[in-house]
């Protein structure tokens, strides 16, 4: 590959680097602009002076956001949801993937079970019947409404299942000869061996819970129980300031509405930014496993 480049190749190469750089910059610019907005003062923002760098730097929008008890409440709901929800998701995925990864000789009803789970990827009851069910079993307005309906994630189950299948059968048989039952085999052999898969799925679940907003919006009657993204949805996207008190509104009048919104979006994105390096590493293998398998 280290042959001398022809002139055409050189021109292409320059063009290629330029185009890719431009695209990458275009992906980032909107995010940078929003960060700049969140750090600029009212006059600069309303005067339209802010592009990519804060003008008349101020932390005031962040101070305002971080002083909101409603914001912290929503943040807290999301933290609880992400922690509890992810734990439930991952535990269930492990518990389901192990039996379903067995050969048919070891679990005779395997095919039936797999179909019960797989079918839910093909067909679903849709929004209204699900909503009414949640209402009738009485978990509206509780954290459970955000966790239980999505507790079994079939896509992650399939990822885990395929990973478990790569565990050599001899290893399992050896454990069984040594007297280990299915539970011991699962926790002491399958789970430790599958750390990369578990990490991938954990991250999928954390990001999923962190970014979820629709279920919060429809299952929480009281806006005080909204998770972060649902809370943001009402104030950033739908411009609904009903959740705001009179004093809040007064202080907001001195700040720029756009800066405050921008600051909120940035704070909501920070956790993703923090896990991104880990995501990066695991997601790539996760995607390969999930999408381009043999």
């Amino acid at each position, binding site marked *: 590959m280290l042959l001398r480049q022809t002139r*055409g*190749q050189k021109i*292409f190469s320059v063009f*290629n680097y330029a*185009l*890719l750089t431009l695209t*990458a910059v275009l*992906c980032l610019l909107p*995010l940078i*602009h*929003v960060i700049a907005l969140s750090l600029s003062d009212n006059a600069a923002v309303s005067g*339209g002076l802010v592009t990519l760098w804060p003008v008349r730097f101020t932390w005031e929008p962040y101070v305002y956001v971080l002083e909101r008890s409603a914001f912290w409440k929503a943040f807290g709901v999301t933290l609880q949801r992400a922690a509890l929800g992810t734990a439930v998701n991952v535990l*269930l995925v492990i*518990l*389901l993937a192990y*039996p379903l990864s067995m050969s048919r*000789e*070891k679990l005779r009803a395997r095919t039936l*079970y797999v179909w*019960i789970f*797989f079918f839910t990827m*093909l*067909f*679903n*009851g*849709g*929004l*209204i*019947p*699900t*909503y*009414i*069910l949640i209402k*009738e*079993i009485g978990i509206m307005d509780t954290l459970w409404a955000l966790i*239980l*309906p*999505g507790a*079994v994630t079939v896509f992650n189950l399939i990822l885990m*299942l395929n990973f478990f299948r790569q565990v050599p*059968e*001899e290893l399992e*048989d050896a454990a069984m000869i040594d007297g280990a039952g299915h539970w011991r085999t699962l926790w002491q052999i399958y789970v430790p061996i599958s750390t990369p898969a578990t990490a991938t799925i954990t991250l999928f679940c954390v990001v999923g819970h962190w*970014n979820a*907003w*629709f279920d919060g919006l429809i299952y929480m009657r009281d806006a005080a129980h909204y998770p972060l*993204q649902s809370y*943001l*949805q009402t104030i950033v*996207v739908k411009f609904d300031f009903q959740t705001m008190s009179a004093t809040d509104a007064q202080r907001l009048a001195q700040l720029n509405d*756009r800066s405050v*919104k921008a600051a909120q*979006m940035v704070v909501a*994105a920070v956790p*993703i930014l923090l896990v*991104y390096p880990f995501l990066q590493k695991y997601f790539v293998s996760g*995607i*390969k496993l999930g999408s*381009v398998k*043999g």
Partner: protein
Amino acid sequence: MSKHTPALGNERRRSFKFGYKTRRELPLHFMLLPGLVLILIFAYIPMVGVSIAFQNFIPLKGLFGGQEWVGLDNFDYVFSMPTIWQVVWNTLRIAALKIVAGLVVPIAFALLLNEVRNVLFKRTTQTIIYFPYFLSWIILGGILIDILSPSTGIVNKFLGWVGIGPIFFLGENAWFPYTMVVSDIWKTFGFNTIIYLAAITSIDPSLYEAAAADGAGRWKQTWHVTLPGMHMIIVLLMVLSLGTVLDAGFDQIFNLYSPQVYESGDIVDTMVYRMGLQQTQFGPSTAVGLLKSLVSFILISTSYLVAYRLFKYRLF
């Protein structure tokens, strides 16, 4: 190694201990139980709940209360709505555009990135372009609303400098669907690029050497080796994406549309939401949802089947 190792003695033990296998399986059934219960409640009961589509549903009576059956009245009602075909058309149009652009753009970028020899540059670019994928449509929606605003947004400010007058990307029917497609690409193309890059790296390097020996330049190598090497994954993802042609992207559109762009932007899912949860027309709304689920079921099953027949693709 074979799956049955006679030395283990399983076969022999089973022959004189009846029910051994059943007992051996018991823990496995227990492991499946919690997940099974949850999925029966939260996935299968709603499937039964689609009966609402054939009822004059009164919430107070409950999901399994004695509701009044009305046959196909709800469907008649829905199909007599003046906007219904507009909504179906919007859904298909936005989804189709997204599918096409969602194939072409990542493939193009995978090919371009593959030509990059500088590893640091390649990795940095990759990292940047797939970052938006991890942000929610709430955050990206908030960003889009701000930057696309006709009065204060930077996009229109920039367009103003080059002499193009403010465009209301989110408020005009002529622009709204394309804004959806482009912003969807912004969010997802980096992620999909990685899938294609993975496919490229699995191409046998000796094919390139052979092609080079035959006098093929980079361009010809791309055309005759890389693209054919990718065609399996391209067709596979295309086939699978056809199953989602009724999903034009609820999360995105719900957060970005407004009554003035219903004409071009209202899709089946947003309509179900408005009819069902805002106007509490449970029956008609479930009827629309049921039709969508049925068509999706056929499309997804067909695309899985085709993917299996053509590529031996199996999800599990």
